[in-house]
């Protein structure tokens, strides 16, 4: 019985029956699985594997990860009631059974010394430490009721980026690349910029079990930011072209003989690689940016790889169709001397972040670009006064997973909205909790993806960014 025979006597029913074990089904099965994902056409304008589930609000994402965990109660979520507890422990019913990284449940409360004010038409509240971001509050959506599961940096970073506390799972950016593909033929779909590296390292932007082409490609600063982009010294452009052409001439002859489409894909990749060698340096060269734009972001020396420069690069990247840009900013882990250190970090990011929003808005790109800003967890209302090594320090705050704040902007979120709230101690969420899984589900939703449907078979499971959790928080969507 030949299921592929065109004999009119052979029925559709018969085809389908045989199809379940026949080659048709096998081919289809593999199309549904790895093979479509290991599709040879990697960068280039590829379509991605996932048809949109609904009309997207956002086409691309800029994820600003403040590594270490910024203090929500010093920046976004004022807790005047803490002043009453200053120097004493929180009520034991609040801290009972809770996990802490370094402090104990009896650690003493410390209130925030910063002024908070209302800003913009929305009246969103922000601390004086972030004066420029305070100027764009009407474009921001502030979630004060975030929750995560982890109190360690590495696992917390992994949850925020991959939805799972263990290394080896695909990152949000990798899922976006896998699901939606790329819109620029000369650049990767997922680019990572860094001002310091997360402690869990590259697995945070890894592809996990997705094919490697979806991993974040790290632009490492400098004029040639991608590994192996530079030709060896003795090879000039013309000579490189001759070698690539020679390689492809051999490839073409192989293809003529073997007819394997993988070979034509390889030919295309060599052409792309050659183009990337100029496209990437052009991308990171800011010489065509006006002085007023440089000033807007606070880029003083374009050769210096500051956060401000990375924000400007993020705009350039999304402008050219890169799907997912991530900036990691290390240094928010303020266990000690928080009032000295927090101020410095805020000065580092305040201008770049607000400029990015302003600039994208001026260019009409903010509506289609989802910007998110936040850490892997928050910080405790109690002070940490002893270092991990057991020595006394100036007061800081410990890791806190029960509540923290993230900001979103553009990409279809409600500007000016302050969502969710925490209890008077700033300890737990009192209203509208948003777990990281919910937040991922919401971000994917804005990209036009149902988080339960963007899946990849891994060890028998339909693995996904939100694991087996996640609900879209509709209230955040404009």
């Amino acid at each position, binding site marked *: 019985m030949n299921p592929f025979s*065109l004999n009119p006597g052979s029925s559709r029913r018969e085809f389908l029956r045989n199809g379940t074990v026949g080659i048709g089904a096998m081919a289809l099965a593999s199309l549904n699985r790895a093979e479509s994902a290991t599709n040879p056409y990697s960068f280039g304008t590829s379509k991605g594997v996932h048809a949109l589930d609904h009309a997207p609000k956002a086409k691309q994402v800029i994820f600003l990860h403040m590594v270490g965990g910024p203090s929500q109660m010093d920046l976004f979520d004022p807790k005047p009631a803490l002043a009453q507890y200053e120097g004493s422990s929180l009520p034991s019913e609040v801290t009972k059974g809770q996990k802490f990284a370094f402090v104990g449940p009896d650690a003493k409360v410390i209130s925030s010394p910063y002024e908070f004010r209302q800003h913009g038409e929305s009246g969103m509240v922000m601390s004086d430490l972030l004066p420029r971001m305070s100027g764009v509050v009407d474009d921001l959506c502030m979630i004060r009721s975030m929750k995560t599961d982890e109190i360690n940096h590495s696992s917390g970073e992994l949850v925020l980026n991959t939805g799972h506390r263990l290394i*080896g799972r695909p990152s949000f950016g990798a899922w976006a690349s896998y699901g939606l593909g790329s819109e620029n033929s000369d650049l990767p779909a997922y680019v990572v910029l860094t001002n310091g590296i997360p402690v869990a*390292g*590259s697995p945070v932007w890894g592809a996990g079990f997705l094919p490697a082409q979806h991993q974040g490609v790290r632009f490492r600063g400098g004029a040639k930011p991608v590994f192996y982009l530079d030709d060896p010294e003795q090879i000039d452009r013309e000579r490189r072209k001759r*070698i690539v052409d020679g390689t492809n001439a051999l490839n073409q002859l192989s293809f003529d003989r*073997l007819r394997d489409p993988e070979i034509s894909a390889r030919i295309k990749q060599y052409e792309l690689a050659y183009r990337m060698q100029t496209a990437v340096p052009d991308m990171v060269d800011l010489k065509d940016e006006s002085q007023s734009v440089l000033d807007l972001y606070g880029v003083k020396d374009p050769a210096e790889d500051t956060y401000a420069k990375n924000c400007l690069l993020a705009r350039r990247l999304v402008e050219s169709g890169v799907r997912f840009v991530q900036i990691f900013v290390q240094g928010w882990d303020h266990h000690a001397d928080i009032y000295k250190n927090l101020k410095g970090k805020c000065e580092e990011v305040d201008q770049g972040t607000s400029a990015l929003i302003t600039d994208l808005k001026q260019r009409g790109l903010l509506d289609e670009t989802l910007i998110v800003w936040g850490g892997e967890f928050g910080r405790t209302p109690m002070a940490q006064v002893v270092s*991990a090594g057991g020595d006394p320090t100036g007061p800081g705050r410990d890791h806190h997973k029960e509540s923290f704040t993230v900001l979103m902007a553009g990409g279809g979120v409600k500007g000016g909205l302050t969502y969710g709230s925490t209890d008077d101690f700033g300890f737990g969420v009192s209203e509208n909790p948003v777990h990281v899984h919910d937040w991922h589900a919401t971000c994917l939703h804005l990209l036009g993806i149902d988080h339960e449907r963007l899946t990849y078979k891994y060890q*028998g499971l339909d693995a996904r960014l939100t694991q087996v959790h996640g609900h879209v928080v509709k209230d955040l969507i404009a």
Partner: protein
Amino acid sequence: MKLFREHTLLITLVLGAGFSPAIAVDFASDIRPLLSDRCIKCHGPGDKKGGLRLDSRDAILEAIDQDDLAKSELLYRLTTDVEEDHMPPKKGGTKKLTSNQVELFTEWVMDGVPFEQHWAYIIPEKAKISGDEHPVDHFIGKRLAEEGFEPNPAADPATLLRRLSLDLTGLPPSVAEVDAFVSDPSEENYEAQIDRLLASPHFGEKWALRWLDLARYADSNGYQHDDLRSMWPWRDWVINAINDDMPYDQFTIEQLAGDLLPNPTKDQLIATAFHRNTPTNFSGGSKVDEVRATLMMDRVNVTGQVWLAATMECASCHDHKFDPITHRDYFEMYAFFNQSVEEIAVLGEGMFRKKFIGETVEVPTGRENPEQASKLQAELDELEARLAELKQSSTPGIKPQIWSTQKEIRALKAGVAELEPAVVHVLRDSRTPPETRIFERGSYLAPGELVSTGTVDALHPFPEDAPQNRLGLAQWLVADENPLVARVAVNRWWAELFGRGIVETLDDFGMQSAPPSHPELLDWLSVDFVENGWSLKSLLRTLVTSHTYRQSAVIREEVALVDPGNHLLWRSPRHRLTAELVRDNALAISGLMNREMHGPPVFPAQPEGLWDEIGGADIKTYPTSTGADQYRRGIYVMLRRGNPHPSMLNFDAGDRSLCVANRPRTNTPIQALTLLNDPNFVDAAEGFAGLIRDREGDESAKAHWAFRRALSREPSNAESNVLLSLHATDPTWFDVAQALLNTDETICR
């Protein structure tokens, strides 16, 4: 692409063909996949929604009206228009059955609900084949004939020898070896080549690679700090065991329980490092009991995955949604591993650093240097003394000095360790093991009911005389009654040669697995494997002597139209070499390769600063190898989980955080940049160019030799012309060498 368009057209035509009278329903191919995909997630061993299960005949009969089959609840639910009654429910996201599928279901119910065991849980048997037929060709040929196709003719001898050499040893043949085979491509000589390659010590290096992926082998802990550790003696144990063709049952027992064998040898202890390959989180805030629970769960998951292709992890939080693995089964398996002694402890005061404790074995590295070690030790003592002083001091702002001294001490300690014998962590059971409780929702913070050791109840029984420890577990795995273990292994080795398993889901033989493309073949090979004393080499001999293996890779469009994925194996598959072999092949062609085996990892050049980026790491300087060490095979390249060598990652090697049964094979521009510009590959091109220059003869002779050195076969005139025109603009032969090393055929087998 014309080829694919026509194929789509063909499918459309077939789908458009008319209906004809019903034919009998086949449970395994028609019904089980639907039950598994659309029903069992809610009505299975896990959720049992509405008290209904659909994973056994008895359970299904509850939804069947025996007196009037057509009125059965099961059929009503599939066909009703009442939205709240309809199954699968609209909002769950599970696809509705098509009208054809409903028709099949109806017919199956009307037939009286015939049910059979999932194929992978039935003990395999050998189908009879006539004496002189090759078993692989018999089953592959039968299926091809059914579809009306012929296999490709045999590949030319040069191409075949290259394929065989790369497949068995991961190294290309020399031009002289190719010449000898081309002049005598007889059956006897082919078999002699197989014997030669199977006996090569490089065979073990090639075939260990897949096992290292499964065993999540790496040279560091992973996570924050990502400290280095000496697991390489275990890697060498694997290479040796494979070279010795250690029977797979013994290979299993020694790795899972070598320490529990009577009077275990040092090697048998080292074998148990298999389960100390687990990534370990030593971050500041991680808790000892949390880390232990993660280690033990990893061992259950990896054991299930490696030997049973079971997705155990699903059962860590609740009963498995699809497969007959309960939450309780999971923790009974956990109890075997949880008998181990403590393996993690907090180091010194504070909670910032933890360390490994437990059983170790010392292994000479061949690089011991007691003199240098004692010199460093003296420095270390000095630093320790300084640290003690600093700690006494009350000077303000002294903290950073203390931290940097502590860091220096840790780095120096690692330096001293380098000069001493390697210390490998291995398994040992405790005389007073902790109790094991079921973790509710998989959380170690929610221990529930007490359990003792046990295996998956739905599979074969635990051997009566086996001990209730890891040794018993290993014996249970390799018991004759286990329907899975041989199939799973044979399928993965098949995939190593043919690029894809007979069961495509190398990592899942459960209900959600892909059906085998050639079930009788898989069973024949699995039974034969066990009958031949679980011998990998004899299995491979069977596979590579088949015509299926030896046929050419040329794509015939008329067949490709129907089976573009080559599921029927009408041609030899072509696929790109794995990351390690891309490196090995280039080094071998270039003449630079250092074929020394075994020992501590090596450090070929990588971009600067990578180790500096690993969070909280003490060792931040990558000690780039010099001399011949930089040209060792890929299997010996340092794998630090926090930042593995970028060339390897670019060719789809993982960071070995997880057990991986199936590496993806991508084709990206970053790979092109790596082959063109990574200094290791530039060195290879320079080495190769040097060899070409040194050849006797004129330009044409040199170009001809270069082509054959890279690809074994004879070049066509057009191919020679490409090389000669590259040579015309670059008399150094570097450009020719690079073009040859970059061509698709060179990096594919």
